[in-house]
């Protein structure tokens, strides 16, 4: 009798509003998958892109309802407290949806140019993004792991998507092997944390650590460190960055855009939740580790980029450097820090996708022309395209009147506010080093030694994506207030 009651399954209550984005993404992915399987010929790419964009737009619409629901009822958890619906997750969802829409549009033009038929890219990108959405909303280490794996497995395939280039397959293998290791390390860390605190739920971990003093914290520390390594791999923080330049270079360029935006959002959201909500009490323990990570990430990212001639490798190191800045907000461990990292990620994603859109264009058929020399005189031949790329690069550099300035401003402010003046100084000096390679690129754009080179045709969608990136960079660079306030509000609705 007793046995019987014990095995009765209690179905947890499910708030479908919270799960709607993830479900829609999976649903869309499945629909496309079934269409490909059941139809005689390949799914038209127009349909695939249409469905993917519609999915993204739907998520933006949900976000509106989610936000008003949170504003009325506050943050909630669902599915046995494993999934959160809070302001932070809504912003994360919006950024992922926007990044996916933009990347898909770029990939659409790319696929037409490369004569890649079918909906394979869209299916995988939707599934990966669903994983990222799950990470953003996860309140449980297991769910984070689930999201991480869903995100990664799709990406492993996407990276090796370009069958014409051997580097693509090589990059996929490299990413898969190292990614597999990182996932293993992450889940091991989760297991150790479970051993130390008795739960994998972030709220429970936080509650346990707040109510108890861990006398033998070895297990907890080891677990936390392993989790951190897992995340460091995903955000490509030095010294766990070695995969990123090769993978960025090898992957088809639109996929690189997805990696630099969607993956970063998912990974940083989960990292913030684990470190701030679950391990917030252990601030003094993980801070020194992050301190070292940030200094290495900023400095190595900026200085190694100096010698790169391949713009995709260059952007890989650049995004390593940017990840260092995003980590600053995490380091500060304050509400201001969380808001600043959120703001950074939110503004970085569209800008970087637009940058990769330009790189996709210049890459030409075959996706091979990625030397900085191919950009020589671009702004002379095509002032709008070249000027747009210059604005996007200036934004990543952090020049005033672009949104990159306020992104850097807010993370540095949070760091200084938490007493990290020296750390902030190292980071901003690394930005000065980074300025060197951004400027060298811009210099090439405005060089007048190759004005007669071939003009690149800008397809409609890619042009729109680039325009969106530029508008984000300049609009929020002149008028950052509303977006920053939104990120702050979102953080106030952070759970717990």
């Amino acid at each position: 009798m007793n046995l019987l009651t014990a095995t009765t399954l209690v179905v947890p209550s499910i708030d479908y509003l919270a799960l709607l984005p993830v479900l829609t993404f999976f649903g869309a992915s499945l629909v496309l998958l079934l269409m490909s399987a059941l139809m005689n010929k390949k799914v038209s790419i127009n349909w695939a892109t249409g469905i993917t964009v519609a999915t993204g737009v739907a998520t933006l619409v949900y976000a509106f309802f989610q936000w008003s629901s949170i504003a009325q009822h506050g943050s909630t958890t669902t599915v046995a407290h494993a999934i959160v619906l809070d302001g932070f997750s809504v912003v994360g969802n919006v950024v992922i949806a926007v990044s996916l829409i933009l990347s898909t549009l770029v990939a659409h033009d790319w696929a037409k140019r490369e004569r890649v038929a079918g909906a394979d890219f869209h299916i995988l990108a939707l599934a990966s993004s669903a994983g990222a959405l799950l990470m953003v909303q996860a309140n449980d280490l297991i769910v984070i792991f689930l999201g991480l794996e869903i995100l990664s497995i799709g990406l492993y395939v996407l990276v090796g998507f370009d069958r014409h280039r051997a580097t693509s397959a090589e990059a996929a293998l490299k990413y898969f092997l190292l990614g597999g290791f990182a996932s293993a390390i992450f889940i091991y860390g989760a297991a150790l944390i479970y051993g130390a605190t008795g739960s994998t739920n972030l709220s429970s971990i936080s509650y346990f650590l707040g109510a108890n003093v861990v006398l033998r914290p070895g297990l907890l520390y080891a677990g936390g460190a392993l989790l951190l390594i897992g995340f460091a791999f995903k955000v490509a923080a030095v010294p766990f960055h070695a995969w990123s330049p090769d993978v960025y270079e090898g992957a088809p360029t639109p996929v690189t855009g997805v990696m630099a935006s969607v993956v970063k959002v998912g990974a940083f959201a989960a990292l913030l939740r684990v470190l701030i909500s679950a391990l917030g009490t252990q601030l003094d323990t993980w801070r020194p580790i992050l301190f070292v990570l940030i200094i290495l990430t900023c400095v190595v990212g900026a200085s190694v980029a100096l010698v790169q001639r391949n713009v995709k490798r260059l952007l890989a190191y650049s995004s390593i450097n940017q990840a260092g800045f995003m980590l600053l907000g995490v380091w500060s461990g304050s509400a201001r820090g969380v808001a600043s990292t959120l703001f950074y990620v939110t503004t970085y994603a569209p800008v970087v996708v637009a940058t990769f859109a330009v790189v996709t264009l210049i890459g030409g058929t075959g996706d091979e022309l990625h030397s900085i020399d191919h950009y020589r005189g671009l702004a002379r031949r095509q002032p709008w395209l070249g000027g747009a790329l210059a604005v996007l690069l200036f934004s990543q550099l952090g020049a005033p009147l672009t949104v990159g300035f306020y992104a850097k401003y807010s993370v540095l402010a949070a760091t200084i506010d938490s007493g990290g003046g020296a750390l902030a100084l190292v980071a901003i000096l690394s930005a000065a080093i980074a300025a060197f390679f951004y400027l060298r690129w811009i210099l090439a754009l405005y060089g007048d030694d190759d004005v007669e080179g071939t003009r690149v045709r800008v397809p409609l969608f890619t042009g729109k994506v680039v325009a969106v990136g530029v508008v984000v960079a300049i609009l929020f660079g002149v008028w950052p207030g509303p977006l920053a306030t939104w990120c702050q509000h979102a953080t106030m609705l952070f759970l717990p």
Partner: protein
Amino acid sequence: MHSSIYLLLLIVVPLAGALGALLVRRTDGRAYALGVATAVVEMVLAVVVALLYNPHVKNAHTLDFATRHVVSAPFGLAYDVAVDGISLLMVVLTALVLLLALLGSRDKRRESAFVGWLLALTSFTMAAFLSHDVLEFFIFFELTLVPSYFIIAGWGGAQRARAALKFFIYTFSGSAFLFIGILYLGFAHQHQTTGVLTFSYSALQSTTMTHGTAVWLFIAFAIAFAVKSPIWPFHTWSPITYAEAPTGGSIELSALLAKLGSYGLLRFAVGLFPLALATARPVVLTLAVIGILYGSLIACATPDLKRLVAYSSVAQLGFITLGVMTGSKIAMVGAVLLMFNHGVITIGFFLIIGFIEQRRGSYQIRDLTGLQGPAPVMAALFTIVMMASIGLPGLSGFVSEYLILIGTFATHAWWGAVATTGVLAAAVYLLWAYQRVFHGRAESANASITDLNAKERWVLVPVVVLILALGVFPKPVLDRISPSVQVLIHHVAPAGVNK
């Protein structure tokens, strides 16, 4: 108190001109005409502001045309502009530099872009001088890098790419320290007060801090301004940059943007951290004096006319730094005046050197001899500018250097004594260069050069007039500077020398 609309116009007019220059067709001279028209409007506005400015002290400050609007509260970002006696001259200089740079150095390659960048640069520089908010100042201070970078990289000499990069990276790195310092100061102030994040200059002035904090913040601020000025040993970017930039760019950089450094040092580093002065003063004064000697010595040895002026600027900026840091009121007034005078003199130098280069295709002193014969007017105008730079009584340079030196002697006699040798050295390298370039017998290419044409002469007229006028009758200008310097000294005085 006058309406702040004037200051808004000062910022917006060149920006609108820049957009207009980019929109008009690029081949014909329309962009140039538009640029000149904008520059004239800007000049008129600046003169009107200078004449309207009321230097009387109100509520312990001498600000006029002031307004403040918070733009974005989470960032503590505000539009906060005002003019006082210290920034007033810089406003006039900014407008003057634009006008003369446009008139004196027309570059017909991709003209609309050149004019556009020049106008944008003017707008940002103007905004930086008008800012009464530390963060706002920083933003515009940083923004000036972008147009300067494009001007050097797009229209400079053979090594322009290297010069542009070097310029950007040096200044950007210097600003990094400033940025951290500003944020630190803002938060220190926020925690002390009601919790509203503000970077208002007046508010931050009342921040209480320990001596150690003040010294660190002063260093952070001073590094940025030392790079910009440039103060020895942070000057290494400047000679190549000034030499490689096109004439218009050299004028903007050396006559104007360098002043952002010394202005920032006076207004922000000195004005915000009086506690640090006792410690920092000997160090900065020593660096300034070394800069004077170093700049003068290298100027003696350099074979290139443009670099000679660049190094002489290092020396002159040393004098300005000396005046800014001594803490004596006379020297500070002299420093503010020298910022303006050095600007005017440098415009004159670079314009004439640009004219020589147009005719001879070279800046090398050894390529030039006996220009006095074929080009007497050019030689005469060069002499006036040169004499002003040397500090001949009756010309503008004398007044400002004299004020700085007597102020320095009163408070820091030894530094003053060493610095005075810089005045002698200036006479040596300038007269020697003049001798080599203008004296002797002109042969072949040198003999056949044409003298300045009417337009070139007219461009130099304002320079000569200002040199003479401020040399003979500087009182109206000094009357506008003094009260504001007095207010600053009053704020700084408890911690510093007061003579």
